[in-house]
Every structure is written in C-alpha cells, then in structure tokens.
C-alpha cells in the first residue's frame, strides 16, 4: 500500500527524471562513438563539472586506502615476438626486453581526469575536493606525486580550467571558462591565466576575441616555451541560426597566438572550418610548428573514416590539412603527439575485441598500423608522449560490470615500432583496475593515476554518509616509474 507521502516522493522522482530525460537530445550516438579519452592532458571540460558541483554543494567521494606492494612482474619475463607485419602500410610490432623501470606506488593523489607532469617531480592535476575549492582548482606535486597541495587562488574568483600547458615546472598557462557564472569575468570574454611561480600566484590576461565567433572558448592550448603559446578558440558562428530546431549552431574557430607569454594575442587567420575541428590531441613545438589530430567520417560507413591532421610549420605560416583513410572500428580512439611530426594513436579492431596502434612520422600524411600482441588488453585508456620517439600507452580490459581490469602499461622508444611492457604495482593486495590518466614528461617514463577495482564496482555494503557530515576527498593511487630519477628537466 502506497500512502500519500510515498506517492509524493514518487511524483517528485518522476518529475526530476523526466526533466533529465528531456535533456537527452543533447547526446547523440555519434558523440558516444566519437568520445575520446584524454589522450594527453591537453583538453577537457572537467573544470566546468567541478564548478557545477560546487554550486550544487554535492559530492561523492570516498578515500582509497593505499598500501603499495611491488610484486613480481605480472607480465612475461621473456616476451616473445607476437606482432606481424601488414604490407604495405604496416609496421612490425614486437615485445622486447624492458629497459624502462617498473611502476611503483608513490602515494595517494588527486581524483583527477587531468594530469600534466612538467618534469619528473612537478605535476599539476585537478583538485580532489568536490565541494570546496581551496585554491585555483589545480593541485601541484613537487615530489613526483607523493604529496599534493593546492595552487593559489586566481584573481576575480575565477577557476582555472584545462587545457593547461606548462613549458617548465614553474611556468604554466591555463584558461578560465567563459561560461563560468561564478567568476567576476564577464560572460563571453576570453582569458588565460599564467603563473611563473609554480602556482604560488597567477595573473589573468585577456585574449583578444576572434572576429565572428560567439560563445568562444579555448579548446586547445599548447605552450612549447614560456613566451610562445598557440590556442585554438572554438565557438559558434556569430549570428548564425541552427540549421534545424534543436540543432547546434554552425561551429567556428580560430588559432590565436601569443609570443609574449600571453599578454597580447593575434589571430593566425586560419580558415574557420579548419580551426573549428574538434581535436583529439594538439601539440606545438618551440619553432611554432603545430599539429592537431581528429577523426572524421562516419562510423556508419567506415569506408569514409579518416584521420585528419591540421598543421602549420610555424607562426605566421598557413594552416593546412592532411587526411589519411583509417577505419577506426568500434570503441574508443586515443591519440597523442610527441612533436609536430610524430604521433601515435590506439584504436579498437575486431568489433572492439582487440586494439591496434598506428604511428605517423610525417605529421599525418601517412600512418603505419600494427596489430597488438594478443596479450594486450582490448581498450586503450591513456596515451602520453615525452617526445617523438618515446610514448607510453595505458590499456585495460573491460569487465562484465562495466569496470576495468588487467591494466597494462606499454612503452615505445622508437616511435611505435616496438613496445615494452612495464610492471604495475599491486595495491591493497590486488592489482589495479587501470591507470588513467598517464603523463610522461621524459623518455624514461611517466606518472599516472591508478584506480582500484572497487572504484568501478562499489561494495553493496557501503554505508551512506551521516547527515551533515563533510564529504571525504577522493584519493587515487599515484604510480610512477620515475622515482629515483635524479635529473629533472
């Protein structure tokens, strides 16, 4: 028997669910198929979510106890050659003896989807806390991930948002969301924030608004030096109406460049349709050459799928495109570039039951594809390149409950031709579920954020928080194979 009180609750729940369901048209199958994991910490919208959670005053967080136990190598001690060549545009993949140090747990860390390591000891990541923000919203470690502290608050009540780009340990540039209604910055304006003190203080600089773009936002930011930064600004064509009710307005974009560390910016003048591309990764070198990669075409007709490279050879040089046919198949595609010519991507094959890796050495004009060894997991999780030759791939298998298991880190030191497995530590007496994200500042290795299997399948006996209790900051297991590295870059 449902009494009136219970019926009221049901009506409230139905109403709320209906309001949520009504917003479902903002998602499409294509957005799911074109989802990419943060291949490198160059772009995300996590900061927006965090701010919305602050408004809501809600958080779900639970501490993850950390006991790092370095167990014997989970992977083959004597790896064999299992890859095979695919002529003509294929490369031979083989597992080789590892010369890269194994990963170890170095401590607890932020609950983050964004991690950027500028050196072997200094990294920046999204702040852990969901309901309070003690600084800019970005935390920093100075000891390779063992301890983390908030960076200083920004002026004007602004929150620092990714993309973040750090040409050195102390110099970083990031963005402020123009849609963030909590800051004192006017809606529709465009700003970057800069620190020269490793986050101890920040200065906000306005970015000139590109002509003809409404609701502009900085989608990509790459600062190869403390002075040179290239930003991709995207938005909608100003004044343009959607083609149909409910459709998005036509996209517009521009590449903006600063050569004085962010004080002044100018429009590079790239065609708007190039600059509005949703890049999966974006990388610029110190000489001003840049590359952005994105998949194009439709998964419904894989013969139309290509990987699009949008490139420039330097500041002031024209932006051009190169397109290479590449059916990506079912699943998730991740991409990363170590420099403006060398990039790697990992993508699923065999209906999502396997994973392939492809590499380019000429800025996307040609790609060489390799079939993964059968021992590899099926899902590419994170990919980070220290330079054109040295990249690290995190992968895992999917579990029957939608979680992840059997994580693996593979390293290449030759641009993707051969791969070496690197040992991951057990935590709390068991293996990790996955490592995401991974950030690799030097060829020797990376710092990553590990998650335990419990993250994806919470115990049924979990007790709800007591009324009025403060949320507990989430923690992750920070893993690194750089501990002991003496040379910071």
């Amino acid at each position, binding site marked *: 028997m*449902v009494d*009136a009180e*219970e019926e009221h*609750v049901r009506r*409230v*729940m139905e*109403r*709320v*669910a*209906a*309001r*949520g*369901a009504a*917003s*479902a048209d903002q*998602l*499409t199958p294509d*957005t*799911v*198929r074109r*989802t*990419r994991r943060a291949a490198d910490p160059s772009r995300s919208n996590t900061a*927006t979510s965090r701010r919305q*959670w602050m408004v*809501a*005053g*809600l958080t*779900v967080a*639970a501490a993850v106890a950390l006991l790092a136990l370095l167990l014997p190598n989970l992977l083959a001690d004597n790896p064999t050659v299992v890859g095979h060549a*695919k002529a003509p*545009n294929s490369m031979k993949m083989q597992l080789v003896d590892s010369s890269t140090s194994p990963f170890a747990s170095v401590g607890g860390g932020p*609950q*983050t*989807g964004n991690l950027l390591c500028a050196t072997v000891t200094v990294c920046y990541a999204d702040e852990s806390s969901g309901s309070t923000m003690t600084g800019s919203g970005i935390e920093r470690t100075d000891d390779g991930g063992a301890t983390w502290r908030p960076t200083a608050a920004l002026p004007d009540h602004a929150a620092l948002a990714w993309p973040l780009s750090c040409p050195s340990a102390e110099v970083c540039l990031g963005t402020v969301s123009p849609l963030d209604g909590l800051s004192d910055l006017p809606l529709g304006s465009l700003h970057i924030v800069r620190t020269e003190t490793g986050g101890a203080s920040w200065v906000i600089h306005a970015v000139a608004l590109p002509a003809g773009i409404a609701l502009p936002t900085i989608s990509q930011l790459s600062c190869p030096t403390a002075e040179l930064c290239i930003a991709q600004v995207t938005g909608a064509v100003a004044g343009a109406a959607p083609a149909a009710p409910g459709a998005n307005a036509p996209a517009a974009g521009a590449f903006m460049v600063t050569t004085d560390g962010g004080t002044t910016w100018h429009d590079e003048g790239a065609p708007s349709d190039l600059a509005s591309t*949703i890049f*999966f990764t974006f990388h610029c070198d110190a000489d001003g050459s840049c590359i952005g990669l994105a998949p194009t075409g439709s998964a*419904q007709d*894989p013969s139309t799928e290509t990987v699009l490279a949008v490139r420039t050879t330097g500041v002031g040089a024209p932006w051009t495109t190169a397109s290479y046919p590449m*059916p990506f*198949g*079912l*699943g*998730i595609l991740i991409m990363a570039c170590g420099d403006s010519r060398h990039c790697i991507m990992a993508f*699923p*094959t*065999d*209906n*999502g039951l396997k994973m392939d890796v492809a590499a380019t050495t000429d800025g996307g004009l040609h790609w060489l*594809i390799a079939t993964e060894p059968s021992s590899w997991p*099926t*899902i590419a999780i994170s990919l980070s390149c220290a330079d054109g030759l040295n990249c690290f791939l995190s992968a895992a298998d*999917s579990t029957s409950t*939608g979680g992840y298991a059997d994580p693996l880190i593979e390293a290449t030191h030759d641009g993707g031709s051969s791969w070496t497995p690197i040992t991951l530590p057990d935590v709390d007496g068991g293996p990790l579920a996955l490592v995401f994200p991974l950030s690799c500042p030097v060829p020797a290795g990376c710092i990553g954020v590990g*998650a335990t299997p419990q993250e994806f399948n*919470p115990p049924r006996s*979990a007790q*709800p*928080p007591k*009324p009025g209790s403060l949320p507990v900051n989430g923690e*992750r297991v920070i893993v690194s194979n750089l501990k002991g590295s003496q040379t910071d870059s």
Partner: protein
Amino acid sequence: MLGRGRQLHDVTDHVREFDDFFRTNCPRLVGQAYVYTGVLAEAQDLAHESLTRAWERWGVVRQYDDPAAWTRKVLRNLATSEWRRAEVRRTKSRPPVDIEGPDVEALALAQALKLLPTTQRHAVVLHDAIGIPVADVARELDVPEGTVRSWLSRGRKILARELGLDDDYEGGAQHG
C-alpha cells in the same frame, strides 16, 4: 586499404544496432542519472559514460539478455563511484545547460537519496524514477522482490521526511 574490409559489414550492423539501443535508452539513462546527481551536466556525463562503456564493448554487450540492464548497472556504479570525474570527455563542447541556475528540487532529491543505503537507493531510483518494474529491479539488484518492495517503502518514507513532503504537499516543479 589496411586489410579491413572483412570488418566493415559487422561494424555497420553493430553501429545501426547501437543507434537503436541509444535512442531507446539514452533518455531513461539521463533521467536516472539526474535523480542521482541533481545536476544536468553531470547526469549527461554519467549517461554518456555508461553508453560509452556499452559501445566500448558492444560486440559483447549486444549479446547479453538485457543490454539496457547492463548499462543501467554501469550507470549505477558510476553514480556511486568517485571515478566518474576522471572519465571520458565529450568531443563537442558542453552546452551551457545550467546557466539559468540550479534545479533546487533535483538537488534536494539527490542529496536526500544519499541518506539511503546504496542498494535501497538504486531500487528507489530504478522503480520510482524511471519505472522499472519491481520484478526487474529485483533481478537487476539480485534480491527477492519482497526485499525490493520493503526497500521502496522504507526509502520513500526517508525521502519524504528529508524532502519535507507532508500531507499538505502540493507537488509541482521548484525549478530555478
């Protein structure tokens, strides 16, 4: 080209199948997630992530007896896991969905739901919010139907108390 022609037929079929699955289930997933979070953007992210997990291994998930139930389970796990903040990003910029202000009713509901034990919370959301029959809820949560009915009743009473829904309650949206 790349020796992949043999895969194209399967891929196309799977894409079409997933599209149908998406259209049928996406609204209900977002609705379910919205009840958990009270924040529209978060709800969209959760639904998006759940569907991404389904797509990620669609070749296997499509063969399950009830792929929708599997996806709802993923969403439930995501909703109760802190991991959700560290997940995939949408390829398109997020529209400024919450710029008009928070949905007070949804936020209060999400907050109140956190007072329920996890499985009880899931039962209430599955049945009362998105209309999954008690028998199916029992199957999804792997408990007897009687247990679900008991959870529903107890859960609603707690929620009613927390939300201040007494006999004089008139209902109606409190949005904005």
